[in-house]
């Protein structure tokens, strides 16, 4: 078995992405409490850090923060990370309709899986969380020719969940956020088309 050995990337205190995403209280929390199973220890325990010292350190880190590149976030600014649709149907019917809809949009639909399949013994409730993978191979080939890294967002996926209240919802990842990392306009256009197809497909299924 491979020995666990965390490799540490070069220090990047001024990582603008993280600093942009993290609130002061998160950074302070990390300083004070540390991160379990990492080399980041609790400075509250190890060095008796007070709230004031932690606040000062957060302020110091912020003072070295570079402004976020607004261009890099503008394309998806305001776009949700996830699209959520409420279905007018029960779980089984919603899944059937989604599979039919995907086929109609020329997606090959893979066998459904429960969300936690393969992780161990599942509870009855786990059966109400279903993942449907699908793929439009023409699109896939087009994406992979542009950049093999795009394999990370393929296959396409919809997650269907029946909540405790009996309501059935479909969750779709908004691929535009993942695509933005490729900084390629053509990929962005193709991805927009793909996610629009998926949204239409889901809208038909839940109607």
């Amino acid at each position, binding site marked *: 078995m491979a020995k666990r050995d*965390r490799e540490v*990337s070069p220090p990047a*205190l001024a990582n603008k992405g993280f600093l942009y995403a993290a609130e002061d209280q998160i950074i302070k929390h*990390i300083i004070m*409490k540390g991160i*379990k199973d990492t080399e*980041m220890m609790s400075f509250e325990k*190890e060095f008796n850090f007070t709230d004031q010292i932690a606040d000062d350190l957060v302020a110091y880190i912020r003072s070295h923060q570079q402004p976020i590149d607004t261009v890099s976030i503008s394309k998806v600014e305001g776009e949700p990370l996830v699209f959520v649709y409420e279905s007018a149907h029960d779980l089984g019917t919603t899944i059937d309709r989604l599979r039919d809809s995907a086929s109609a949009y020329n997606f090959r639909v893979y066998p459904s899986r429960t969300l936690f399949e393969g992780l161990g013994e599942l509870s009855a409730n786990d059966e109400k969380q279903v993942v449907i993978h699908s793929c439009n191979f023409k699109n896939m*080939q087009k994406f992979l020719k542009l950049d093999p890294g795009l394999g990370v967002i393929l296959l396409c996926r919809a997650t269907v969940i029946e909540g405790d209240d009996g309501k059935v919802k479909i969750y779709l990842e908004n691929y535009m956020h993942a695509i933005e990392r490729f900084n390629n306009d053509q990929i962005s256009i193709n991805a927009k088309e793909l996610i629009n197809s998926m949204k239409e497909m889901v809208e038909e299924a839940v109607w």
Partner: protein
Amino acid sequence: MVIKALALCALMLSSSVFASSHDELLIERVNAKFSYTWLALNKTIKAHNYKAAYLQRCDFAMNERHYKSDKYRIVFFGKYDEMKRMSKKYPKLSPFFLLKITVMEEGKHTLIIATPPITLLPLVNTNEDRMTVFRWNEDMKSILKQVKSQYK
């Protein structure tokens, strides 16, 4: 003493948390063919205390349709209790579960690719849960780097 502690803290913050770029894909090119990389990846996932749940073959279906492609699979992995708790609390995390790594053969090399879990931060709202997301991110980076390091 305080200055030394502050310096140490800054260094550790930089290595543990800030090392992952929020807006970059996690990608490593492994100097090994697909089958060796695949084996190393499965072992390394287990060594990080995750369970490899299932794999999705994508190349099979592509070849079936006469598209030329290299080997292309996705391995899904996770920790049942942790992910169940998180998806129950934050259903919007469910499209990103289980964690996954894409494996693609490219000539004599193999690419292993993952989306940085830290991108899920906006979906959680307590410090404890943010720490969980940070840990996933650290583990994902560590898994990829460790697999690469086995075939230098």
